[in-house]
């Protein structure tokens, strides 16, 4: 988590208007999600991965590792979609016999599953482009301009900030527990984690009271207004985004029939 957040603040597209990056990620993700074509989805995956590594400047090793994060879900998900079982012999099922069941994959499900992998990873690559190139504060700023309710935006601002404060508190408490031999057995682990959690809750509530006091001393009266960084929209980049997405869309449409082999 530290890493994604770190790259968001230190990458080659940092100064680019967040709206452009968000639009690029969102439109591409939209094409990917709506695309009926496996080739189109793979094209999106390749384009976004290349953009993230070559243009945003994310080390490819880290990028690959990040791609493995949803692997557990993806594997479990596609296996569940792809694999069927039947108590009667079923000629449509390519597979093995297990404890009297026919277990295997049907043609149609294989197609569905492979398309699912391409679509998911394609959309994931869009998400990563956004999250690795755009600081959360600026994403929240765009949401605000998109008329997301003020309370939600304000809460997001505070939550984002205090995630890091509470993470640090958690780390300190955990370290203190471990240095006095905490977590040495399963039952001790539950006891100690419970203690950590309740301590963290207590500290969170105290922090919220303190925060109210400190903000009140700066004239807080129910509303949180803040500056957004000034970033210029660029027509050139806008056209580039439009061009890339147009090509991706064209690829998706042109290759639409291919997977019904």
């Amino acid at each position, binding site marked *: *988590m530290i890493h994604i957040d770190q790259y968001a603040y230190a990458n080659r597209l940092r100064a680019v208007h967040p709206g452009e990056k968000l639009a690029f990620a969102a439109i591409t*993700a939209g094409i*990917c*999600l709506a695309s009926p074509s496996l080739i189109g989805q793979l094209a999106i995956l390749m384009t976004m991965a290349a953009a993230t590594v070559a243009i945003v400047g994310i080390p490819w090793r880290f990028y690959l590792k*990040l791609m493995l*994060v949803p692997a*557990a*879900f*993806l594997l*479990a*998900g596609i*296996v*569940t*979609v792809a694999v*069927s*079982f039947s108590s009667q012999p079923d000629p449509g099922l390519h597979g093995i016999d*297990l*404890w009297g069941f026919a277990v295997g994959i049907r043609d*149609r499900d294989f197609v*569905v599953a492979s398309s699912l992998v391409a*679509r998911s990873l394609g*959309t*994931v690559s869009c*998400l*990563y482009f*956004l*999250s690795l190139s755009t600081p959360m504060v600026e*994403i929240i700023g765009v949401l605000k301009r998109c008329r997301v*309710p003020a*309370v*939600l935006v*304000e*809460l997001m601002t*505070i*939550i*984002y*900030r*205090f*995630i890091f404060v*509470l*993470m640090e508190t*958690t780390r300190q408490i955990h370290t203190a527990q471990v240095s006095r031999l905490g977590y040495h057995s399963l039952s001790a682990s*539950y*006891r100690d*984690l*419970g*203690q950590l*959690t*309740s301590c*963290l*809750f*207590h500290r*969170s*509530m105290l922090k*919220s*009271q303190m*925060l109210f006091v400190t*903000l009140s001393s700066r004239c807080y009266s*129910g509303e*949180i207004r803040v500056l957004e960084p000034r970033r210029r929209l660029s027509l050139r980049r806008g056209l580039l985004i439009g061009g890339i997405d147009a090509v991706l869309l064209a690829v998706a449409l042109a290759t639409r029939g291919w997977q019904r082999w």
Partner: protein
Amino acid sequence: MSRKLLGALGWFGLVALLSPGQAYAMHIMEGFLPAPHAILWAIVTLPFLVAGLRSIQNTVKEAPHLKMLLGLAGAFVFVLSALKLPSVTGSCSHPTGVGLGTILFRPAAMSVLGIIVLFFQAVLLAHGGLTTLGANTFSMAVVGPFVSYGLYKGSCRLGAPLAVAVFLAAALGDLATYVTTSAQLALAFPAQTGGFWESFVKFNAIFAVTQVPLAIGEGLLTVVVFNLLSVYSRGELRDLSIPVREVRA
């Protein structure tokens, strides 16, 4: 049918055990749902979100300090969901924070905090996704809290010991989240022969193996936490209007 179910459980148990370790609370990953489903779930979730926001707006107007309290509560739930649950198998799993969050901060607030937490998880942790935010919010921030709170209130009313109420709320709130997720996936990917139900059973089976121990773990943790809170943080709990009675774990 029951033989079939048994077979499914066996097979998917095997798959689940072989699948790689890091089991975060099971949110549907980015891009996994087809567009119509993603949009549908976003629409279904919207009224709950609006209701939650409205209730928050009203309370914040009366008491501006609640904004800071909710902010810290949200950060707390996020950090809670990033903790590692102690596990026997050595695999790494995380609580959802649904049960504890709901009992402490109420279901209405949880729907709002939940969507923010899920949003941050997607962007900062690459866990879950933005196109599936609607579906995940529905399961984790609407159904989960609703079930948790219902069970908590219900069992308190029926005179169950608080520990039991808290355990049921946390563990079953957790499970309800997964069952909902399974249903969402089964709706999106019905089996060719057995349709929604076969697929639902398949998804549930695979999640049951990974998530039931996790739900029990989260239930236990929540009881331990609640026990400590009800002894030493009475003040805070009173401010959040929670009945203060000692829990026996």
